[in-house]
């Protein structure tokens, strides 16, 4: 129906992603407030079984076709574009994740529709949809509204707990015809799996994570020493991986790993949304940063305003003392 709220479901390599359920929970709230239907859209190949898990939606539009098997945004974009044009939803909640990145970010251009990026929340005020967006690396938040519909909202992970989006109910599923008039110009070939052999940071109980604030590769040794004293491993945020100081397998965040250790010690990490997405569920988060305004302090349990490079050796020394007392 025209004016519905849509959720673009993300499925990757045969599994529905967590963010799909997070967006369903968010979409449900918005649709109920507006008195609209909540419609999920699932695009892929052999995905009908997955559609059954999207029961928080009133209905699921399922586009299933062999040409939609890979992560081709051009093919999925044609299908989604046709559906949106013919059915006229009011808003489309779309994942702003690496997996769906190309589709979500190119859809508004294709539709000539407004796009609201970096959304962490959406609400209804005076009958209109408002989004809350994370800007400037998490240092500012904007409350935003679009000029007209259909509006595409790029939703960040964590908008709602995924559990809220999972229900026992089976939704009504409508299989839609797939027409792909244009051959994709970017053709998916294959995936490249991460290198094996290194430490699996998703299995570590203790992680010392270093960011831009460590300033040079030499300072990695300070983090290594603390990780060793605590029986854990060192990982890094994007800038450290970009510099080649740590391998890609040690990256925490949007492109890297989602970790949930018992202890996460963040050294010199500002806490950009892309990073927080990867570590916010750690058991205990201790953050050290020179900037008292750093967004990392909004997710950490304990915070210290200091240069991590001065503090890490002192913590290491204290940890060593404490553990040797325990042994003796």
């Amino acid at each position: 129906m025209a004016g519905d709220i849509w959720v673009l479901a993300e499925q990757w390599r045969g599994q529905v992603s967590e963010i799909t359920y997070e967006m369903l929970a968010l979409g449900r709230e918005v649709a109920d407030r507006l008195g609209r239907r909540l419609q999920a859209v699932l695009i892929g190949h052999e995905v009908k079984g997955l559609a059954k898990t999207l029961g928080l939606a009133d209905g699921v539009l399922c586009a299933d076709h062999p040409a939609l098997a890979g992560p081709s945004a051009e093919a999925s974009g044609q299908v989604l574009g046709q559906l949106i044009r013919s059915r006229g939803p009011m808003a489309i909640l779309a994942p702003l994740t690496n997996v769906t990145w190309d589709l979500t970010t190119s859809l508004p251009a294709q539709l000539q529709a407004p796009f609201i990026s970096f959304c962490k929340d959406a609400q209804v005020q005076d009958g209109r949809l408002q989004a809350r967006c994370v800007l400037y690396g998490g240092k500012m938040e904007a409350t935003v509204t679009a000029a007209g519909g259909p509006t595409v909202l790029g939703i960040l992970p964590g908008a709602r707990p995924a559990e809220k989006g999972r229900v026992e109910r089976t939704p009504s599923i409508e299989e839609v015809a797939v027409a792909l008039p244009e051959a994709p110009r970017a053709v998916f070939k294959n995936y490249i799996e991460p290198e094996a052999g290194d430490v699996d940071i998703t299995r570590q109980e203790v992680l010392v994570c270093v960011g831009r604030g460590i300033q040079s590769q030499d300072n990695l040794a300070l983090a290594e020493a603390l990780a060793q004293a605590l029986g854990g491993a060192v990982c890094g945020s994007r800038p450290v991986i970009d510099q080649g100081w740590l391998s890609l397998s040690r990256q925490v965040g949007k492109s890297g790993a989602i970790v949930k250790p018992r202890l996460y010690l963040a050294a010199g990490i500002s806490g950009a949304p892309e990073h927080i997405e990867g570590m916010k569920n750690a058991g205990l988060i201790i953050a050290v940063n020179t900037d008292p305004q750093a967004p990392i302090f909004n997710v950490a349990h304990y915070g210290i305003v200091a240069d991590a490079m001065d503090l890490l050796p002192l913590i290491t020394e204290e940890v060593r003392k404490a553990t040797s007392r325990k042994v003796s």
Partner: protein
Amino acid sequence: MRILVLLKMVPDVVEELEVAPDGRSLDLEFLRLMVNERDDHALEEALLLKERYGGSVTVLALDAPEMDDALFTALAKGADRAVKVSGGGVGLNTCATASLFAQALSAVPNLWPADLVLTGCQAIDDLDGLLAPLLAHKLKLPYLGLVTRVEVDASGGRATLVKEYAGGVRGEFDVSLPAVLGVQAAERPPRYVPVARVRAAMKSQKIEAVPSSDRVEAATVGVLRLAKPEATEHAEMLEGTPEEVASKVCEVLAERGLL
């Protein structure tokens, strides 16, 4: 191989950001600007491709404070040509930015055609869209984002790209050229260039300044309010001398059975 790199200035978030009196935009007075970090990676990837396949790199930017420094830095790093379009400014929305770039490509002599257009995969102020997909649509070219590697085939008509997915998994695509790519990271960290070389570039090279047309698209989204995030939770701050803080950290770890 002709490569175009699009650069944009964004606020340096290491500095304190303040909201302007209108409550809807950043206070520009004390803002320090820097080149969008991902654009710097796009430039580096372009320079690596030039070294590998030959050809030229042109950097194109909308005028903004400190933009000249950024463009001379790009020239000092090895870019061949720098073009600056007036009428940009800080805080311009991304849809309008894409539109000004598209107009410049058709108006400025010898800018188009190119084989590749590279820019950062995102910027920290991309509220209403990302530059690469918006521009790709205007130019009717293929687009891929989060790119970390580009290899061009012998004909120069196609490229193999690597882009990032999740959990360290990457994907390989075969794409027809020209294409517009949003670069996540270059194959190597962006190169450093000494200030002396930038100064030399300022003396020996020129930035072409071109006027922009007046046709700037109306904003598609409206900002009602801009504010520092109200944290629902905040860390308990540990204070004291560094030694005291270190020992407090250990107490916390011991309480949680982590020692």
